[in-house]
């Protein structure tokens, strides 16, 4: 039988492993949640709840995940999915009018293409580098500094409508670029 100190060591070991796995894969987990729950504040709340629930359950599954990042992401995204549904039921009136069946469909679809979405992220990293300085600055204001389009318009002295259009244009260009990069690298769907 394992001694108390051995149990303590095991516990410490998986706790550290969980934290490392969670932090390392946080972007993927958060992106998964965002597609089910697009609201940024809500998705961040769900990320919190997911981290807590995963923490309480990790000891039971750690051995079966074999420390593999893909297995961890798949497991934690399943938890995130249930946390999103719970959250959605609680706060439905404040969220998008998605039915639960649609949420489940989106979650299924996304979990099935986890690797494809990771590919898209890698391609995005390349495409962002191809943006003009002006476009990159606009994205930085929107995403890095979390400024609303109206705030950006005030900062740069442009009509707010042109900021909306600019952001829409840049994201469309990035979507096109991602497809091109994936195609060039032999990952066309």
């Amino acid at each position, binding site marked *: 039988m394992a001694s108390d100190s051995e149990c303590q060591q095991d516990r410490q070991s998986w706790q550290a492993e969980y934290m490392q796995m969670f932090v390392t894969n946080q972007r993927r987990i958060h992106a998964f949640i965002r597609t089910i729950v697009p609201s940024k504040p809500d998705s961040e709340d769900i990320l919190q709840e997911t981290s807590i629930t995963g923490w309480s359950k990790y000891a039971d599954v750690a051995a079966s995940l074999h420390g593999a990042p893909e297995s961890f992401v798949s497991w934690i995204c399943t938890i995130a999915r249930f946390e999103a549904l719970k959250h959605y039921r609680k706060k439905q009136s404040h969220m*998008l009018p998605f039915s639960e069946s649609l949420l489940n469909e989106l979650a299924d679809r996304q979990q099935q293409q986890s690797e494809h*979405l990771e590919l*898209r*992220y890698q391609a995005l990293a390349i495409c962002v580098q191809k943006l003009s300085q002006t476009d990159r600055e606009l994205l930085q*204001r929107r995403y890095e*500094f979390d400024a609303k389009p109206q705030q950006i318009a005030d900062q740069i002295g442009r009509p707010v409508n042109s900021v909306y259009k600019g952001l829409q244009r840049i994201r469309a260009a990035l979507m096109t670029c991602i497809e091109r990069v994936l195609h060039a690298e032999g990952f066309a769907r």
Partner: protein
Amino acid sequence: MTDSSRSPSSDRELPRLLAELCDDALNANDARRLAELLEANPQTQQKYIEYVHLDACLQYDSILTAGRGKPVQDPQTCDPNRSTVSLPSAFSPTGSRRSEMQSPAFFSRSFISSWTMPILSAAIAIVITATVTWRIVSRTSNTQVVATTSPDEPKTINRSTQLPVVTSLNSKQRSTTLQLEGIGYVTLDGPTDFALIGPMRARLNYGRIKMRVTESTGRGFVIETPDGEVTDLGTEFALSVAKGSDTSLIVREGMVDLRTGEAATPSPPERLVGGEAVSFNAGGNIQRIMSIVASDVDSLGSWPGIPATEPLIESVADNLRGPEVKSYYEIVHGGFCEDARAYVDRNYEWNGLDALGMPEFLIGADYILPFNNDRLAKDLEITVTLARPAILYVLFDDRGPTPQWLRDSFVDTGLDIGTDEDTGPIYRPKPRQLGKGPGVSIDNRFSIWSRKIGDAGSIVLGPRGGKTGRAMYGIAAVPLESK
């Protein structure tokens, strides 16, 4: 029945709705319309997932700060150290203090600031503290380190507060490596005047250092020099400060921001990414370093003006890149061997095709790490300057036609060599991984072409030619007299 989710109007509608969703501008009617479109059409769901995924990924600052470009100043604070937040103790190696970090936009908004993560972290801190006890013994409180590794002076370590904690110090005959808690490693090479002067700041007055930031909390660490300052954005880089000459900066991985001039009035930042190298001075003059010399693949690298022992390949240059480009070729003197890195911009290695290994005459050759991305450059000219008579080898990918310039002036030795290729910049479902040693995980075969060069001087090599899917050629040289 009309399917409104697939009408031409919905094709125009969807991008607008998605953009409004991502910019928090979706009203209730539009939200209902978006839900309707998604409920009705799986293709729309796919577009929705990809678009929102893009939006989520852009939230992560590493995407937006990757690559070149002047960062925009935070409109909220106009403070370059913007969004500095306290991290839970679990994120620092010993769990003994809160660490400061340049926060990603995501962290700054809610994740770290909530109560949940510190609770998790407190538990983790206990674990991590226990595992690093042996290192804690070697330090006291917060420690200021002024390390002077001149051969004439002993190392001195003074202490004050609010400075990085040095958790280990590893001194070898020629170099000393400091491990900085929550930041990473600094290696001081030879005579060096280096001081930690703030929680995220150090000064190099003289000498050569290599810095590798291994912790996310180390991002934003600044090293001042008399010619300007370098801000780490998650990377490995090397700096050389010498009296009477410009300061040199080589970025091996990741990226840094360079500001020339005195710290009080620095210039706007210039971003450099892995594979770029420059020399700079306090007057703001920044010059590309065309090639660097490494005495071996893992070394600090020799610096311009500090020649390695009896180099055969003196320099390499190309006709493609203007002064705005900072990428460097790497010359490795005597470094050609199994698992030698093949390109500056790819994690590929040279290897023998089978267990017998690579041809013996290539082992220990001087060689050049070119840019694999140049494989499609039609007008490429690479000028290799040799210090003395040599046999110059071109290692040419067998998957395409041989260009005329190669057939005209080189001879196919009939021998081949291979490359072992790691997954490139794109994630692959079945990633290729590097093997160790000859004949292991060889991905492509290259013919070895040779040419005797009777005199010191420059040789011009042409473009690789052909289509995509083939690799750039490699270049190696051995002394003529030894063959």
